[in-house]
């Protein structure tokens, strides 16, 4: 572990060191800057007055008055509209496309087809490998004109159709058409610890199960979109994204230009959930048309494109073997998983949680990714862990039933005391307390001692599941704090607020550090040109990554502020402090920030902060959720009555906003458990429910009573603000908790979600 330097003057310069960071569950070693100093950690006892409270979102007024502007709300003078033409088939070749007819239509300014875009953009390729792939585009004076021309272009496509595969079985069948030149699957990725054969031999009970999870679609209400505008050779992009700097580098690479000439702006965004982590076909299309036509161009996905080609949570087929002694001690866990990624994607599969959630000496996981002719996957809130938790936690619940044991007791018996995957100690892990608190809030009684379900057709049941997720965040992340000549404060960090509340909590951290009133502090985010670098808002990383950088910047600014006050007041700096935007001398108010800054004139007080390296510890957010359901055994309809969630995420910066994150994860988890499933037609290879009517996301009428809470405390070993991430953890245990409650109600295990009526009835009929 790197020692924290408390003295701001030593060492005088930053150094560079290696650190381990986790991104979306994957571990990477990076070289990072070691800040010249890091503040002493805020512990659970540190008195804080703004951090830990729930002021309203700083941008709430804009959001409730309709003034918050999203990408599609950006209007530039002379702006044109671009629409993509997408493949209607899953595999084939574009033989030809006649562009002329569309080109001549009223309002149409330009058309692009195969060969018209630089290969680095991967736009408009002749080889078709999934339905929905962009094949051509049109740019017109109105969206209406562009859409009409796009229809004409679509009709002018001559495609030679080829056989496709969209299921695992079809993709792996002998002689299957190749999705990628290298083959239709990856080499199995095997990760093992201990000796599984020995673990199985030592077991009193061994269960084998197969679990299946669906393809889930992010379905952010704001579609992907961008507005691009050139000024000479300088490009400005308004993009709905979770990563402005990533979009900038994507564009710079694809268009062969320096990053300094690309400016990416993002003020408000309407949800991302993992699907908006880089530039896309819409970005490149808008940028290319804008350059060609010398006018700003807007390109926004329509809903069909959004539900077809903007990423997804891949489905899984997971074969699980779970083995334990009669007293519940786990002796072996085995997972063999197949994950159809689409045409591309990364191997962030379900295995990891099998290695991390429980103490188990013998674990072997095998993941095989399969390529199919469907749009590629992308990260979706808790990628891999959500799918893995459904299998692992369902297997744990099956084991509890087989052992006639309370599923909570089974889990508490197998608590991980350290990260058995890496051998690292936890910075903090209070999962056991989450179980205890959750049982209390839920009124949990062991199913073993409960009376069996009533004979009525509507049956009730309860279930539990748990979660872990790496939420340490890490460097690099930078922030600046600037105190203006009227004493107001700007926090400058090139991060983004997806709706999580980053803008608010960064202002809270800066205000608390400076001793400033929150309403004098403004967080400025979302601009690659004028703000310091921070990473993507993914992996529940923004709070633990950018938060410490903001605190450090504010600490430095406060040091300078007090030095200046010391000179003005002729009082030693040690006797000065700050509170409520006032300088206190021996705890007596002597000067307001505004008066001090007025006297200083245009002397600018600034502070610079960066996120230091991570400790050599496993930093995780953990939690337990309890569900109660009602199942109509005649109709198969499952209704979730209530959900209790207790999570441990270290310090909570803003409890109201954190609670909203729990609600959001849980409600998406309800959708994953009960309704959400992309239907990809096997024969046609197209998505049958690429809209928000047939792809069912939860409505207000579907949402149960939710009691979501955090354990109080802080995790000063994780980083110096003591906070871990919270956005992804809550979706992870929801579906297995609901499935367990359904199994409890019906006395039938259902190994496949979503638990739609026909699936429930099918299981009951067996």
């Amino acid at each position, binding site marked *: 572990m790197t020692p924290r330097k408390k003295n701001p003057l030593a060492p005088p310069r930053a150094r560079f060191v290696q650190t381990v960071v986790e991104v979306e569950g994957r571990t990477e070693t990076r070289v990072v800057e070691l800040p010249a100093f890091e503040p002493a950690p805020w512990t659970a006892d540190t008195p804080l007055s703004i951090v830990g409270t729930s002021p309203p979102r700083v941008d709430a007024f804009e959001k*409730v008055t*309709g003034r918050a502007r999203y990408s*599609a709300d950006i209007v530039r003078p002379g702006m044109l509209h671009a629409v993509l033409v997408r493949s209607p088939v899953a595999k084939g070749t574009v033989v030809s496309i006649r562009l002329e007819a569309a080109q001549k239509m009223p309002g149409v300014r330009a058309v692009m087809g195969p060969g018209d875009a630089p290969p680095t953009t991967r736009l408009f390729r002749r080889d078709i490998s999934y339905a929905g792939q962009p094949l051509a585009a049109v740019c017109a004076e109105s969206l209406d004109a562009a859409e009409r021309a796009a229809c004409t272009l679509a009709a002018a496509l001559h495609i030679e159709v080829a056989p496709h595969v969209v299921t695992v079985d079809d993709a792996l069948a002998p002689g299957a058409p190749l999705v990628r030149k290298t083959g239709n699957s990856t080499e199995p990725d095997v990760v093992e610890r201990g000796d599984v054969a020995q673990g199985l031999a030592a077991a009193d009970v061994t269960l084998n199960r197969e679990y299946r999870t669906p393809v889930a679609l992010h379905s952010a209400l704001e579609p992907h979109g961008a507005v691009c505008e050139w000024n000479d050779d300088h490009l400005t992009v308004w993009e709905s994204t979770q990563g402005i700097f990533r979009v900038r580098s994507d564009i710079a690479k694809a268009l062969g230009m320096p990053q300094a000439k690309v400016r990416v702006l993002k003020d408000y965004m*309407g*949800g991302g959930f993992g699907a908006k982590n880089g530039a896309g076909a819409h970005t490149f299309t808008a940028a290319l048309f804008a350059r060609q036509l010398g006018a700003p161009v807007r390109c926004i996905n329509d809903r069909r494109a959004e539900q077809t080609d903007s990423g997804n949570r891949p489905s899984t087929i997971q074969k699980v073997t779970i083995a334990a002694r009669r007293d519940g001690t786990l002796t072996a866990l085995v997972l063999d998983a197949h994950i159809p990624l689409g045409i591309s994607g990364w191997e962030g599969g379900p295995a990891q949680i099998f290695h991390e959630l429980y103490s188990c000496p013998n674990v072997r996981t095998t993941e095989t990714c399969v390529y199919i002719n469907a749009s590629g996957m992308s990260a979706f809130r808790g990628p891999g862990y959500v799918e893995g938790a459904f299998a692992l936690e369902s297997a744990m619940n099956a084991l509890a039933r087989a052992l006639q044991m309370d599923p909570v007791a089974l889990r508490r018996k197998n608590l991980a005391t350290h990260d058995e995957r890496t051998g690292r100690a936890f910075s903090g892990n209070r999962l056991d307390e989450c179980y205890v608190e959750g049982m209390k809030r839920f009124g949990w009684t062991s199913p073993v001692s409960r009376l069996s379900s009533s004979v009525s057709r509507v049956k009730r049941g309860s279930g539990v599941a748990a979660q872990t997720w790496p939420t340490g965040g890490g460097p690099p992340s930078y922030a600046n704090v600037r105190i203006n000549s009227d004493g107001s404060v700007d926090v400058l960090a090139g991060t983004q607020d997806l*709706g999580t509340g980053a803008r608010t909590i960064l202002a809270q951290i800066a205000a608390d550090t400076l001793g400033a009133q929150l309403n004098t502090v403004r967080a400025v985010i979302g601009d690659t040109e004028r703000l310091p670098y921070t990473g993507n808002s993914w992996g529940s990383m923004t709070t633990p990554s950018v938060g410490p950088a903001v605190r450090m910047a504010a600490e430095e600014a406060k040091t300078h502020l007090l030095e200046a006050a010391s000179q003005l007041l002729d009082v030693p700096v040690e006797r000065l402090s700050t509170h409520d935007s006032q300088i206190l001398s021996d705890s007596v108010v002597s000067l307001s920030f505004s008066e001090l800054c007025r006297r200083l004139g245009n002397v600018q007080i600034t502070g610079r902060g960066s996120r230091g390296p991570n400790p050599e510890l496993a930093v995780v957010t953990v939690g337990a959720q309890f569900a109660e359901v009602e199942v109509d055994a005649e109709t198969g309809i499952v209704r979730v009555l209530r959900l209790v969630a207790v999570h441990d995420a270290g310090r909570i910066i803003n409890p109201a906003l954190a609670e909203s994150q729990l*609600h*959001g994860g849980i409600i998406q988890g309800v959708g994953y458990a009960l309704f959400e499933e992309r239907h990809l037609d096997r024969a046609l290879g197209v998505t049958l429910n690429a809209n928000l*009517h047939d792809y069912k996301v939860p409505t207000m009428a579907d949402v149960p009573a939710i009691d979501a809470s955090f354990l109080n405390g802080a995790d000063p070993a994780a980083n110096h603000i003591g906070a871990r991430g919270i956005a992804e953890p809550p979706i992870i245990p929801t579906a297995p908790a609901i499935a367990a409650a359904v199994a409890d109600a019906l006395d039938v295990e259902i190994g496949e979600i979503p638990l739609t009526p026909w699936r429930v009835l099918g299981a009951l009929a067996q």
Partner: protein
Amino acid sequence: MRFFVNGSPRDVDPERSPTLLAALRDQLGLTGPKLSCDHGECGACTVRLAGDPIYACLTLTAACEGASVQTVEGLADGRALHPIQRAFITHDATQCGFCTPGQLMAAAALLERTPHPTEDEIRAAMSGNLCRCGTYPKIIAAIRAAALDADDVP
């Protein structure tokens, strides 16, 4: 074609913008109502027509001649926020905020029709407005609070 938007007479060309949503956004610059599904599935475009919540993406501009339309931009009385807007702020009933204008218009219409809705009435009235961030519990709390708040203001 003339109609009344947020209390003011406005003229739009229905030929240029066949749907009310397009007319509001593209011709009048009222970008509060959002284009998200374009098929009446999500409610992000919800505005009020003669007081009723409607999907602006499914409403023909030409059918609104002479009618009164209210968008989120017209919900506040000058700087004074509508009780439902205040309640959305204090109950953190927004996350990304994209669906918020539609939620607010549906909620305002509900409260006018049913000043003291039960939770079931709220769920039924609001289930045509999707929120992918999952803000529903807080929207319910905000609507209940706004109903009480309105009692305090004579």
